[in-house]
């Protein structure tokens, strides 16, 4: 009997969360949470080591009946598209624990339990091969995330938590109806692989496309359903922001890749221009809003909207470069924006202000920290040599091939990105040290470096040598394109 590696990956944090409930000492809780997340990460490395990148087939599959009367199975499996996100989630798991080490000083146990539960559910979303199972994981995430924002967040946390919860719930419920409709049209099964092989009539595809769009667009978030994001980001504790930015936002895009494109190919092609335009609007609008922010977290939050617009643009170019760029950019955004939120969190712990105008001259006060900040800001604006450059270049070349005007808008977004990120860096890091902060700043310590360094490594690694990352997704993306454009693979 083989080891059910994916179940192990998904349920290790869940078991850890359950075990944590019986521990009283806060320090033990912290170390145990770290131990569980590191162990989970080790399983993920083992999974990546065994991943066959030459095939698009689902790997490490497990299938067990769950509710046979309705054709629901407990089925897990990963391919080249989901594997990077399983890895990303596991990586950020222990980074989040480190980021909350001192930032969370009350109800530590409850926080770590929520964090681990969250991680289990996020991993479940990326591994699920059964639509019902996927939905259970997807929706159950609302509970721990609601608590993370609402209990440990900032002053406006309750409002932000409600807004997050209700927005996502309303979106997901339409998705649920779509899933059930798909179930009856796709031969009474929730199995994702079977459903991908169905050939649904165009009209059904269109309805389902929009039902799915509501859920995924809220999660991405796409303009105009993005308004929950700045609130949630600003109010959430650092670890919550990292999870939101790095993993949760990816789920919307992942939903498009896993369901909309392969299951509803005709509708996808038909509405791709609409999606491209919506993405372009998000890129420019998010960028403009980011330009006007004084709050560091809000700035990163709006930049997320802009960057996720780039991701959805890449996906809906429906050509090889665009799709690969979009998926790589999803991963990049997880690394870079996660790191930016972590950086903002670190400095906030020291100064208790997020207002850019309060800062200045950090470079003199905390040189190591500022170096990291510079790297992530440059990565976010896609400087050559950093990870986002590769992704953005692929997306842009795909976008220009698909639609000239949309490509031009995306380039404008990249320009805006340079403007607000460099502006932020100049005000925060350069110039004279601001008077109010003179004695508050100390540089990063070993724990903080341990949290931030791996992300910096990925920024440079993907930037300088993206080949191994692109190889993982390559076969699956090609197969996905063949599914979208019919068996001939014609464009």
């Amino acid at each position, binding site marked *: 009997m083989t080891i059910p590696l994916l179940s192990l990956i998904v349920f290790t944090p869940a078991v850890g969360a359950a075990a944590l409930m019986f521990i009283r000492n806060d320090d033990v809780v912290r170390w145990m949470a770290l131990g569980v997340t590191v162990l989970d990460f080790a399983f993920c490395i083992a999974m990546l080591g065994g991943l066959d990148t030459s095939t698009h087939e689902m790997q490490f599959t497990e299938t067990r009946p769950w509710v046979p009367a309705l054709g629901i199975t407990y089925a897990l499996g990963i391919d080249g598209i989901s594997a990077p996100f399983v890895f990303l989630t596991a990586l950020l798991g222990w980074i989040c624990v480190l980021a909350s080490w001192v930032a969370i000083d009350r109800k530590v146990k409850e926080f770590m339990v929520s964090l681990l539960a969250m991680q289990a559910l996020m991993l479940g979303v990326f591994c699920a091969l059964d639509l019902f199972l996927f939905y259970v994981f997807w929706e159950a995430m609302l509970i721990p995330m609601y608590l993370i924002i609402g209990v440990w967040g900032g002053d406006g*946390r309750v409002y932000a938590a409600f807004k997050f919860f209700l927005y996502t719930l309303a979106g997901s419920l339409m998705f649920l109806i779509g899933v059930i409709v798909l179930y009856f049209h796709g031969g009474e099964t929730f199995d994702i692989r079977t459903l991908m092989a169905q050939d649904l009539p165009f009209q059904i595809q269109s309805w389902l496309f929009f039902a799915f769009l509501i859920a995924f667009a809220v999660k991405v978030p796409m303009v105009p359903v993005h308004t929950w994001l700045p609130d949630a980001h600003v109010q959430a504790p650092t670890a919550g922001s990292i999870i939101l930015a790095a993993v949760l936002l990816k789920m919307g895009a992942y939903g498009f890749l896993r369901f909309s494109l392969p299951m509803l190919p005709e509708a996808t092609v038909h509405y791709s221009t609409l999606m491209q335009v919506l993405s372009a609007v998000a890129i420019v609008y998010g960028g403009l809003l980011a330009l006007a922010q004084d709050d560091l977290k809000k700035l990163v939050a709006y930049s997320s909207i802009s960057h996720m617009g780039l991701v959805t643009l890449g996906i809906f170019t429906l050509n090889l470069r665009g799709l690969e760029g979009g998926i790589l950019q999803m991963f990049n955004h997880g690394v870079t924006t996660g790191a930016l939120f972590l950086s903002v969190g670190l400095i906030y712990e020291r100064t208790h202000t997020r207002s850019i105008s309060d800062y200045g001259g950090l470079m003199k006060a905390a040189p190591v920290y500022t170096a990291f900040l510079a790297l992530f800001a440059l990565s976010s604006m896609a400087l050559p040599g950093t990870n986002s450059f590769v992704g953005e270049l692929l997306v842009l070349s795909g976008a220009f091939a698909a639609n000239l005007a949309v490509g031009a808008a995306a380039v404008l977004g990249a320009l805006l990105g340079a403007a607000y990120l460099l502006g932020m860096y100049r005000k925060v890091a350069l110039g004279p040290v601001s008077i109010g902060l003179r004695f508050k700043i100390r540089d990063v310590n070993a724990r903080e470096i341990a949290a931030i360094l791996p992300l910096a490594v990925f920024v440079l690694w993907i930037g300088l040598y993206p080949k191994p990352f692109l190889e993982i997704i390559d076969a699956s993306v090609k197969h996905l394109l063949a599914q979208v454009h019919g068996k001939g693979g014609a464009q």
Partner: protein
Amino acid sequence: MTAAVLFQSTLASLPEIVVVTGACILLILGQLVRKGQQQFLVWASIAVVLIAALGTLMLAGEVRPAYSGMFIADRFAVFFKVVFYLVTVLTFLLSRKYAEIEGIGSSEYYVLLLLALSGMMIMASATDLLSIYVGLELMVLCTYVLTGFLRQQQRSNEAALKYVILGGVSTGIFLYGVSLIYGLTGTTQLDRMAAAVTGDPLDPGLLLAVVFIVAGLVFKVGAVPFHMWVPDVYEGAPTTITAFMSVGPKAAGFAVILRVFLNPLVAASNVWIIVAVIAAVTMALGSFVALVQDNFKRLLAYSSIAHAGFAMFGVAAGGADGVASVMLYLLIYAFMNLGIFGIVIMMRNGDFSGEVIEHYAGFAKSHRGLALLMLLYLFSLAGIPPTAGFFAKFYVLVALVERGFVMLAVIAVLLSAVAAYFYIRIVMVIYMREPEGAFDPALTPAVGATLAFTAAGTIGIGLFPAWFLRLAQHAAIGG
């Protein structure tokens, strides 16, 4: 009636006979029990229910029609009876301490609950409009009295009076519908009604009769437009009785609704349109009005209206899956609703009424375990996976979509998103506020056992719904 037929009929209705006999014996024994030994009554009542449950399960092997077509013991009835037993036993367990605190622990309290149980059981088994009526009246008469059991409190008396008057009117309407049916078809038996009508099923007289019967039954489950009594009665009644009424009699009402509406005659008169409209309006009213409630019991009253609306969608869907979805919904609702009521009942101690939501502020800080249970029940009521509440809603939606009612499914989920707000608002109060005083819940072993059991059901059915689903599906096909 020969002796053999009589024996068969007695056998089929043995659980009902056990409960009624047990209630009568307890009524006498109750006079002999001294003050301070009242927990004997609780255990004796539970024993009666368990004996009846044993009888039900032993007789569940085959379908037994009885009393010349007025009564039937089939799997459909067994499923509902098991729900009733569950609800009643848990209510007894919750009542012990609460009755002591409120000073209502006389033997009549337990006897009336047992008699209400027997009424519900008759309703689940009745196959004739008249035996339905008998069961219905037996049940509601007991609940009228139980509602007014807090004799010293004005609002309890007011609630009881309101309930009696409105309940009486609705029963009258129901009986009028029955008389019209009898006039048109010459029978009150559900099976024979369809055969008796040879003409157009959309005959206006028949339609009128069906509408009257629908109105009478809808009152019992608290659906719009006959919901007015629910908030006042739920608020005024002793909380244990509120908990009981919100699940037991409601499930009994649905049992009758399913039996009557699945009748070919009623099904032919396009009654599902009425049911669908009732379902949508009920859910909308329950969900929106609950948003502004400050009183926990009132909020749960509107929440129960909203849940009745959701279950009504399953009735509108019809078919085997529709019926099974309603049954599963009621079973799951019994677990999660008794759970949350268990908490409210437990909190009634000393000066703490447990009825004002704001008073629960910061509850999670001092009582982690209990707060976690509340969280579980509330998210389950909101229908968030992996709790059972999600699967209940999911299956109703499946039944709706299967029959092509996609728009109804969309309405149902949008309204349940509204309803989610007031459940998570309570979670917010207990987790995200600072406590203003100390909490002293009356957590006796009996209450603890109830909470543990309901929590196990709420999470267990959510994670492993297969067995319960099959149970409901088998029972639905049997009915």
